[in-house]
């Protein structure tokens, strides 16, 4: 019984992690049809921002929840101005340019901070569930991701910002009709996406360790989750992470973590073969 509960918790953890690392990419893809291949490095920058901030005596929670997203959002604004803006509508070119950015950021951080593993310990101790123990921080991550998704939903559904965003998703001219330049909407979107990525990076840092190349471990997963999910930001992210996360965990439990990852990738291929426009390209169309 305890074992079933713990497997279930592990599945939920995997799903939450996938959703967390994909959300920033999904926002940018869903709104702008831009695939940001520097997403993994945004995660990495968030993690380093948190480490550097705690190193300078900033409270751990403030570093993770405030410093990391804000600093990466600033990076996002700069990147949007210098690169993304010049390539709107050219999806492949944007992918290639952000890929270049990804390499450049890895190189830059390696030069400045060195190519060494760092990290910090997870706060919040552990809790007992029957005869099993689990890290309190993982539980926190699950709850936090749920809250984050809810906040994104509320913002999109009920605020003027969300209205403009949804309008722009449907038709870029809509924003213009509302008296807002589409370029402003895109800039804000990119910054929000970057902030979400930075936040995610800081939050996974205590579990995964931090190194300049850490982004490469996540970009493929996030990329695959977002494309498998399709264009709808929330519904896509949640459905794809749910499916892929569950497959991954079951694979890991029944066989090995490597087979779990392979199962995740294989599931994504099968899904895309069956639903070439992603899950929300077929189901839940027009949802958020």
């Amino acid at each position, binding site marked *: 019984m305890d074992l079933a509960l713990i497997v279930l918790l*592990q599945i939920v*953890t995997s799903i939450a992690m996938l959703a967390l690392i994909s959300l920033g990419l999904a926002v940018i893809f869903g709104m702008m049809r831009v695939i940001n291949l520097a997403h993994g490095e945004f995660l990495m920058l968030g993690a380093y921002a948190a480490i550097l901030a705690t190193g300078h005596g900033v409270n751990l929670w403030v570093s993770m929840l405030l410093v990391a997203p804000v600093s990466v959002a600033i990076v996002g604004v700069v990147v949007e101005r210098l690169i993304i803006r010049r390539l709107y509508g050219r999806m492949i070119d944007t992918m290639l340019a952000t890929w270049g950015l990804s390499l450049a950021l890895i190189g830059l951080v390696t030069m400045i901070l060195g*190519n060494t*593993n760092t990290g910090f*310990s997870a706060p919040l*101790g552990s809790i007992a569930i029957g005869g099993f123990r689990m890290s309190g921080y993982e539980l926190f991550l699950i709850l936090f991701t749920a809250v984050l998704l809810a906040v994104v939903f509320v913002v999109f559904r009920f605020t003027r910002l969300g209205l403009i965003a949804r309008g722009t998703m449907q038709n870029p001219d809509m924003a213009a009709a509302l008296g807002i330049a589409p370029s402003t909407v895109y800039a804000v979107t990119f910054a929000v996406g970057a902030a979400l990525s930075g936040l995610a990076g800081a939050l996974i840092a205590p579990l995964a360790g931090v190194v300049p190349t850490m982004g490469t471990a996540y970009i493929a997963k996030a990329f695959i989750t977002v494309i498998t999910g399709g264009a709808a930001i929330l519904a896509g992210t949640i459905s794809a992470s749910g499916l892929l996360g569950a497959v991954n965990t079951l694979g890991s439990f029944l066989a090995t*973590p490597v087979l779990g990852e392979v199962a995740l990738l294989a599931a994504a291929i099968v899904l895309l073969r069956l639903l070439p426009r992603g899950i929300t390209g077929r189901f839940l169309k027009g949802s958020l």
Partner: protein
Amino acid sequence: MQFDRRSLLRTSAIAMGAVAAPAIIHRGAWAQEDVIKVVGIHDASGGLDIYGQPMIATLGFAVEELNAAGGLLGKQVELINYDPQSNIQLYTQFATQAATRDRAAVVHGGITSASREAMRPILKRFQTLYFYNTQYEGGVCDRNIFCLGSGPAQNVTKLVPYVMNKWGKKVYVLAADYNYGQITAKWVKKYVTEGDGEVLADEYFPLDVTDFGPTIRKIQAAKPDIVMSLLVGGAHVSFYRQWAAAGMNKEIPLASTTFGGGNENKLLSPEEGDGIHAAFAYFQELDTPANKAFLERFHAKLGDKAPYLGAELAMMTYHGFNIWAEGVKKAGSVDRMAVTEALESGISYQGPAGTTVVDPKTHHATLDVHIAEVKDQAFEVLESYAQQPPADTQAVCDLSANPNENKQYVVGI
């Protein structure tokens, strides 16, 4: 002319046995050079830098000490360091470079067994002497290489009975998924079974795995008495973090043949690391006069930049270089075969890690082994075993009888 050279090389290649390719070697020039070139190939960056950086520091220190004392054969030793960035293919590139461009007298380096196996055939093909100074899984039988770190018959054989006696008989093995982890796990199984224990499960992880969540749950379900970690590299440090975050470090004790080799005890907080048991041929905390004197010199020289030396790898690199230097002195030359023969005469070296004796038949070493426990980010030595022979490799390899042998034996279970 061309044909002649080729057929000659071909014949010699066949004579040499399983050498992979004939070689074109522009040799002979170094003997006249006024410096002796030594190449060190260790990861200064990437996931394995936690091991590489202290090794680079001790190798550099050993060379400086030697040069300060007048060098070798009246010449200064020039050390060339390459950083393969934890990338196996860069190892092959740098090994080729060391042999064919630098024409190094000796190459010291390689951290993982994978990197050793990548360099070994190249250095043998290009006839360049190779020293591998890392604790490893044993069994390499090749006259061109000297493996001076401890092997399973020296560390696993002591650690497994010790912890089984202390904690219980049911063992769960976690290993890095490459030849080191795979082979060492076999040795662990062998010794656990011999001690009437039981290996509940063995799991293998590629070096880039950072998510150990499912594994930690599986271990909890299996309820072992001991978790034996043969995990390697920076990414795998996440295991210890996640293990502690789940509160498991209070529930099931950990033992490891690798923990400490990369100063993992310093990366983790005391709450996370305390209580882990490890076995190595050296710990910086060893309380011997030779070690104390060394640390004093080392710190005087490097000051704040002196890295923590942790367990074995960095110190055996220091020993390894000095043993090679002893060989050169005895041979009176840096010629590969002359030095090899000198070393095969049973050279020994007394250093901070005690006495290291080269075993002529296997090119491995007899050395002291210690079991220690992590306390407050440092190792506390619990037991010491003097002069342990490399029995694992000795059982299968005899280079004085079969000098052309070139393979790695794997324990048969």
